[in-house]
């Protein structure tokens, strides 16, 4: 029996017995979302690149394929994953990257995981094998279920194979550092983003703003001249430490809040250190924080707050609660793909 078939059998049996399953690839994001009961459904053996065509800027791989394997293959063709997902010590898989929907430093300028997903093959909660999307850039046939899967944390189905769009590796890259306070950094990031500059990442931390430029040689050179600042030498390491959350800021935090806001929202009136990414759209705060206050504040600016890393099943919930009408719709969608409610039940919200 193939690995796929045995996973399919497991899901069928679990559905018949209404036995909850918890899906796990490399286990690099066990901390994310609410912890689960249920039997382990290990996807790590479902591994390997199934299709790679450099002229298409497309790669397909089984869900348990480590990101490192994909990135090695892409790098041989001078390509990369445009959404720069965290690899978490090499344990992260493409399935987990898509299911978690977590994107890296490039997100604000190049797109999120879901923007790069072209197609998925998945097992729903009945054990049916379904294929949505495909391997082509333009495809508007049927509802876009493959993008819906990005960020659904395995609650709608077990991803078995994923096709993503890749991007050419930029020909030139350079990171500039500017000493400035948070308020000025927020203002600068917003202003620079309105100009035709090849921005590919921004971060503010500890009194300095970092700006990465990527693209054609000429574009990066001109961007440097326009912006000024100081060129940093260990740029790749620096952005990796943000992508992988290895900066001391992340490690020191007992709890970690991820606050997603409209980019030009002002500095949050919360004392203590902060780390900003995505042109101001992503604000990391160490915990503990009062969740009610923080979520209300985020909502007031038009955003939301996630308790990204916390103790097991925090009473305040990992994700900002949904309004009743939205929650109802979510429950109905859950029932479409997982009528028995066996897949990663409760990972996002108790009701899903």
């Amino acid at each position: 029996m193939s690995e796929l078939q045995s996973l399919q059998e497991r899901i069928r049996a679990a559905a018949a017995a209404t036995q909850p399953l918890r899906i796990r690839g490399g286990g690099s994001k066990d901390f994310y979302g609410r912890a689960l009961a249920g039997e382990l459904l290990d996807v790590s053996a479902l591994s390997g690149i199934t299709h790679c065509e450099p002229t298409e800027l497309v790669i397909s791989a089984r869900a348990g394929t480590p990101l490192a394997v994909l990135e090695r293959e892409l790098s041989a063709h001078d390509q990369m994953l445009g959404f720069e997902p965290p690899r978490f010590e090499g344990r992260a898989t493409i399935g987990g990257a898509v299911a978690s929907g977590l994107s890296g430093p490039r997100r604000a300028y190049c797109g999120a995981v879901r923007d790069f997903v072209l197609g998925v093959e998945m097992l729903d909660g009945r054990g049916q094998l379904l294929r949505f999307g495909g391997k082509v850039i333009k495809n508007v046939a049927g509802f876009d279920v493959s993008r819906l899967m990005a960020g659904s944390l395995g609650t709608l189905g077990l991803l078995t194979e994923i096709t993503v769009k890749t991007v050419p590796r930029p020909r030139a890259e350079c990171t500039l550092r500017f000493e400035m306070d948070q308020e000025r950094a927020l203002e600068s990031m917003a202003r620079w983003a309105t100009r035709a500059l090849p921005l590919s990442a921004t971060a503010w931390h500890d009194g300095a703003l970092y700006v990465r430029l990527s693209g054609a040689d000429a574009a990066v050179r001109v961007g440097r001249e326009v912006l000024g600042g100081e060129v940093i030498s260990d740029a790749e390491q620096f952005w990796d430490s943000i992508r992988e959350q290895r900066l001391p800021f992340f490690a020191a935090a007992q709890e970690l809040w991820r606050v997603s806001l409209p980019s030009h929202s002002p500095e949050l009136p919360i004392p203590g250190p902060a780390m900003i990414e995505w042109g101001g759209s992503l604000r990391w705060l160490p915990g503990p924080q009062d969740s009610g206050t923080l979520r209300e504040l985020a909502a007031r600016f038009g955003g939301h707050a996630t308790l990204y890393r916390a103790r097991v099943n925090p009473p305040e919930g990992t994700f900002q609660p949904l309004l009743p009408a939205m929650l109802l719709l979510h429950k109905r969608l859950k029932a479409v793909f997982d009528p028995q409610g066996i897949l990663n039940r409760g990972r996002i919200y108790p009701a899903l």
Partner: protein
Amino acid sequence: MAFVNDVIDRLRCVLSAGALLASTEELKPYECDALTLYRQLPLAVALPADEAEVAAVLRACAQARVPVIARGAGTGLSGGATPRPDAVVMSLARLNRIISIDPLARTARVQPGVRNLAISEAAAPHGLYYAPDPSSQIACTIGGNVAENSGGVHCLKYGLTVHNLLALRVVSIEGEVLEIGSHALDAPGYDLLALLTGSEGLLAVVSEVTVRLIPRPQCARVVLAVFDSLAAAGQAVADVIAAGIVPAGLEMMDRSTIAAVEPFVHAGYPLDAEAVLLCECDGTAHEVEEEILRVEAVLSRAGARECRVSRDEAQRLRFWAGRKAAFPAMGAISPDYYCMDGSIPRQRLASVLQAIREMEGKYGLRCSNVFHAGDGNLHPLILFDSSIADEVARAEAFGGEILELCVREGGSITGEHGVGLEKINHMCVQFGSAELEAFHAVKSAFDPHGLLNPGKAVPTLHRCAEFGRLHVRGGNVPHPELPRF
């Protein structure tokens, strides 16, 4: 009939005077969208003026179990807004206000009836624009773009509608307003923004759209490359992408298209060429210069016999003129044509174009190819004459075989026009019954009684048989004022 009058009375109550059309004369303009092959008068046309009226119309129809078909400008090519005799067409045209433009956040909040191009015009003073540019952009509405996940010439570099949206307000069939997505870069819960984009009016009605704006590139130039073989041109497209170049646009025209358009526009396309590629590069002046050099090198290596680079804006527009005039030009050389819209992996371009050429012999009909080559999005135009008895049937069979070939080659039956009514049967070629059932279940999750645009986009399992096309009679392209490319 009593219930029909009930609905009409109720709609009159919730709408302002003159906003409910019910006489045959008033309904006539709504009998079709740009897929004019299908014509049908609806029960009534509702013209709500704001979100509250949209909700009221939906509530009234839901209570009476009357289907509702949302409509923007009616420029869609797949029959997504084709009426039914038992349905109310709800035009969103009066919700045409640009609510706000925030230059620092680079966003525009607009009502669904705002025209695509009007957003870029309003953003222009800030040096910003809205990137997706379907060929009908002077007329099509942003609400319709969301419903169809519209593309355009520049989506190779700048993405489809789904990549350029931040948030929607939508109204459910029950009349409940939902906020989807957010002005941040993500939102809690499932990505309903992605699911709703391209859902062809089957899940909810869009009442407000927040789009992402981007800085307008400082300059754009285009390379016109001439090829003596279709296969070489197809391979050249794959080579450009493989070289790590993502041009702003990469379009192809074959010999018969060139022959049809050149007398029209005098763009300077060589009449003896088998194919012409147009490759546009945009960005800063330096960036463009660098990219143009690389593009020229790749195209020459791929066998281009000649590469011309636009010197100035006037020449750039002239190079594009033929591409943009291709559809009307076809109307002039053939009594009828079908426009297909399939997508394939780029590396299959050469072989698929060759296969289409062979099909010309098989069906005894000509087919011109003019399309978004960089995206692998084909628009084969099958030329025929419907006054000749069996040509319609032959053209239909020809088109069907092309779409099936697209699916077989790993592509899709629609790259950007949507399924609507036109391709509903071809959905059965691309998807299995389990996926189609999942689509129906998703629809039921939003619309339990199946009242939003029923019968479109997703076929019932028992209707996987016939085929339909964009049918252009006597060169009368629907919305002839619009360029189609």
